[in-house]
């Protein structure tokens, strides 16, 4: 009796896992298969194509601008996304660096010297509680006064400002996990405050720093709204470009969109793999006795 009920419960649990898993993976499946489908299979009427009948790399070629021969008739825009991808990389990297620079220093000050008092970290986090859309118009006006609309510096500043609260919150906890005596040991050993931060403390929060950088980079990399409003033609980020992939003839360009989507997933995924070993916690083990 008992073993039966246990196995029944086991089957039920498995079923639930499969169902929920399928729900989550369905969009990904759609995107991966779609990216390999020729145009005829994108959205055939009255038919569902689960797997491409004639798999092709054309979508990727188009997106990366590797081919001029075009299967798409009546194409309004180019589907060459190589420019926007480079733009996105530049914009997201710049924004991430700014957020890290300000955020790490702020987090260190807060964690070690209680800079700004007890409430400052919460006030910084509060910045994230405004929906960005609420401030996007004033931001646009401000940027246009500064002649920063449609420029990299303009995007960098906004990306940096929007994401640095995350850096503060994440890095603050990493700094707090590190015994304060490590920094003090460095000071006693002859470092300046700055020297202690860079030579003794930052090397020991490498993992946290990498995780934070990745997290912030993904936020900036996937931004759509800010780039949509603050840029026009000099800087076109990939998400904005993705949205523009539609033509009068074909409607939504599902194939190229899926291919670009897949490409956009790659940088965060690759970065994640590269820094995986730093993401493992517990690097400070051995520094102090417990």
């Amino acid at each position, binding site marked *: 009796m008992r073993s039966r009920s246990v196995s029944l419960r086991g089957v039920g649990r498995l079923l639930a896992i499969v169902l929920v898993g399928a729900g989550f993976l369905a969009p990904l499946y759609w995107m991966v298969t779609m990216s390999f489908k020729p145009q005829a299979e994108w959205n055939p009427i009255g038919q569902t194509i689960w797997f491409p009948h004639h798999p092709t790399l054309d979508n990727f070629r188009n997106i990366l601008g590797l081919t001029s021969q075009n299967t798409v008739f009546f194409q309004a825009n180019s589907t060459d996304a190589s420019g926007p991808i480079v733009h996105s990389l530049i914009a997201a990297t710049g924004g991430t660096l700014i957020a890290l620079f300000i955020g790490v220093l702020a987090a260190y000050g807060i964690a070690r010297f209680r800079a700004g008092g007890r409430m400052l970290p919460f006030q910084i986090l509060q910045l994230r509680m405004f929906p960005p859309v609420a401030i996007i118009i004033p931001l646009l006006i401000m940027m246009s006064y500064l002649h920063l609309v449609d420029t990299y510096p303009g995007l960098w500043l906004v990306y940096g400002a929007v994401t640095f609260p995350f850096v503060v919150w994440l890095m603050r906890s990493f700094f707090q996990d590190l*015994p304060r*005596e490590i920094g003090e040991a460095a000071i*006693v050993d002859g470092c300046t405050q700055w020297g202690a931060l860079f030579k003794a403390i930052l090397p020991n929060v490498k993992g946290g720093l990498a995780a934070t950088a990745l997290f912030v980079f993904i936020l900036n990399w996937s931004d759509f709204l800010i780039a949509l409003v603050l840029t026009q033609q000099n800087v076109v980020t990939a998400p904005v470009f993705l949205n523009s992939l539609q033509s009068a003839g074909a409607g939504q360009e599902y194939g190229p969109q899926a291919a670009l989507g897949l490409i956009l997933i790659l940088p965060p995924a690759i970065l994640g793999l590269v820094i995986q070993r730093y993401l493992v916690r517990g690097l*400070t083990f051995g520094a102090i006795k417990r």
Partner: protein
Amino acid sequence: MASVRTEALTKRFGSITALRDVSLEIADGEFFAVLGPPGAGKTTLLRTIIGLETPDGGDVFVDEERITETYPGDRDIAIMFQNLALYPDKTVYGNLAFPLKQARVPRREIRRRIEETAVKLHIERLLERKPAKLSGGERQRVALGRALVREPRAMLLDEPLSALDALLRLEMRSELKRLQRDLGRTLIYVTHDQVEAMTMPDRVAVLREGEVQQVGRPEEIYHRPSSHFVASVIGSPPMNLIPAVVESANGRLRVVHDQFVVEALAPVERLSAGGSCYIGIRPEDVHLSSGEGFAGRVYATEPLGGETVVDVTIGGRIIKLITAGASGLSQDAPVRVTFDASRLHLFDADGTTVLSSAGDGSLLRVKDAGRT
């Protein structure tokens, strides 16, 4: 090598006074211990000496040079933190090299000094390892090495042995003492362990709630404690304290407990008739006796191997005594005990020492209360 002096050091954290008028003089090359229970301000004292805390009052001198405002890194004092604070990302070699690199010591000299220090501490085989790959005892040595390698004017050690297991601690105790003797370096050693404070240093300061209670050689503190607080933090098991009443009879002082009377054979000041006081006696100075002595009952026996602690109830109070070997006594057995009158202490109601006989048998006499 240098002398270290603190002058009326005071440090407050909010409403808490961590240090109050701490004045200590540590001689060049001295091994000086600071003993006190947790929260006594020991760590704050070290941190103030090295400059990680700024005192609210008072000064720190090294070789009579005032360094109260000097940057910690410029004081030429090394510290070994209680949690060691090794740099986890660096190898043992990197840890030892770090202070030397900051001081811009030439690379070849760095190597020479690290090798020399490593040999002294028996860590020469560990130089390429990271702290995470070391045992507790090895980490301890590396942390000590990082302080030593700089050849500082003075070294501060914060409970350096507290994380080690008992056997290793014993070993490190004598090793550290020998090391200090060989190097002749000024050493300030903070501990809550009375055995460490008894065995290692030249002198001890006993700290309580930020105030210095007594400074002296370990045996001086053991045999002539200035208060019953000091008496209770040094010696294990701690000194027995027996409340009693002061009575003046025939012009001589008598301290009366329901079971026995302690008579002063010479005039004693600072105790007035009718007041309360405490009699203190260490467990090793209470003896089981077959004939004479005060009647009591065995409350518990604690065999320790070579000796046994016997807890005896006398007049409603438990008195601990130490006897060699196994006691052979069972709980509730009736026993008689005697006090070694040449080892008695009298404390006033505030706990300040009034008299320590400290081996002199002509000061006090103990009598049975029933027979006076």
